[in-house]
């Protein structure tokens, strides 16, 4: 893909990124930070790409390190965010029952 297309995608993504979180309530700052953190764990894709074409040991070992780090970021990020949000949920259900 040419540079201008990539630049277009980049600029439009900035606007989308700002737009989608612009109305977040303070209660959710922590889970949102954690969830966004998990999303950039997709750098795992890049780590797999460079490792999959490694031609010498230096590249291979560096690549494997990158994969381990990225997988920690991705898996840990989503799991920890889910744990936080899990606690927000049953709470509400309970409250609704009480108010009935």
């Amino acid at each position, binding site marked *: 893909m040419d540079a201008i297309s990539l630049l277009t995608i980049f600029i439009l993504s900035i606007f989308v990124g*700002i737009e989608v979180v612009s109305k977040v309530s303070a209660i959710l700052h922590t889970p949102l930070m954690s969830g966004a953190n998990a999303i950039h764990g997709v750098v795992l894709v890049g780590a797999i790409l460079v490792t999959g074409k490694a031609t010498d040991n230096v590249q291979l070992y560096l690549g494997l390190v990158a994969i381990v780090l990225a*997988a920690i970021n991705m898996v840990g990020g989503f799991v*920890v965010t889910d744990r936080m949000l899990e606690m927000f949920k049953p709470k509400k259900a309970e409250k609704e029952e009480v108010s009935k």
Partner: protein
Amino acid sequence: MTSTLIRFAEQTAVVTPTWVRLAELLASVLFILALKGLSSPKTARRGNLLGAAGAAIATAVVFFYGQQYYGGPVKHLPQILIAIAIGSIIGWVAARRVQMTQMPQMVALFNGVGGGAAAVISVIEFLSVHSESVPILTATIFTVVVGSVSFTGSLLTYAKLQELMTSRPVVIPLGRFITIGVAVATIATAVLLILNPTNALLWALLGLSLVLGILLVLPVGGADVPIVISLLNAFTGLSVAASGYVLGNVLLIVAGTLVGASGTLLTRMMAKAMGRPLTNTLFGAFTAKASTSTASAEDRPVKSASPEDVAIMLAYARKVIIVPGYGLAVAQAQNTIRELVELLVAKGIEVDYAIHPVAGRMPGHMNVLLAEANVPYDQLKEMDEINPEFPTTDVALVVGANDVVNPAARDDKTAPIYGMPILNVDQAQQVVFLKRSMRPGFAGIENEVLFDPKTSLLFGDAKDSLTKVVNSLKTL
């Protein structure tokens, strides 16, 4: 310039099966929906799961990029799969085991390793492709510098929050000049690297950037640390986007940019909640004098109270406001405080929790901690809503909080936390502090309310103290 662009276009013309690219488009959409979902309490959990689905799809299809990208089948497939398994297990176990109180440092750690991965990817791509294209080199340098800063910076915030080292700002002699010196050296190396792309210069750049990350975070202390985590999170996002550019991968550009942009906005919102411009957070400590006059603190008289005194004070109040802080969570006293509040409510006393935006260690952290203890949502009041009520409150019970109720933030222009909005507990008729010791809070500043004649202090572990208060309340 034209030839550079052509060469660049050729280099990134990766022919990938259409279904793979459509799957990546789907993943991008899922990431957008994830962030959108995370912005509202009702959809947050589903949003996060959508993000996880997107990440899983993206990871699964990358193995099908095929011939043109890998120059044959994916090499080293077994090692790659093992590395993914190792990383996933480490991440999963760490995320499952971490206590809710340690959430901020866990996020910092996950963020740091992500930044590290982005930096390493660009290093490998540099070593293997030896591109001389200026845009590619610039993106490579950006990823290496920002990813490395995020890596060491995040590890240092982890160490600070985990209390492996002091959480106060660390001001090294001539620190400002050393930091500026290293920053200038990093930029100079980056420019040289574009002119003359050699491996030696790349390693030098990597080393300088790692040091820079440490130097930038060292002088940040106390309540500013969470804001820095959020900022470094945005940094990692941008470095992932840049690594996507280096690899010619659209998905990484989209995902990284989304996180970079939303993270920057989130950082600004957090800084605003604390009443501090972002520049103060980052550079404030450079000018701050090493913690001011704490020497005389030990000698000043304070009024201490017994659990029975506190129970009586609460039982005969009409209106009580609870101010929970990080100390409450550290003592695992969330359930005990809920029990106390239930007792008071049963006695017909009006009770609310006052939640400071940065109560705990991260914005919104206290909401998570109290939700864990099944505290009903409608009892949690945000700062702007509760502050006008303090003057008509009989007892403000501060449990394990300090900086967020320190009037120095309102009145003392020289205080490092000056400008941070606080809960005005000093306006309540009576104030009770449950504290472990006279040690100042996370920001390391003396709190004048502690010495006010209307303030009583109940020393001890928050859970012990609260249990004793609850027991004597039951006998009243």
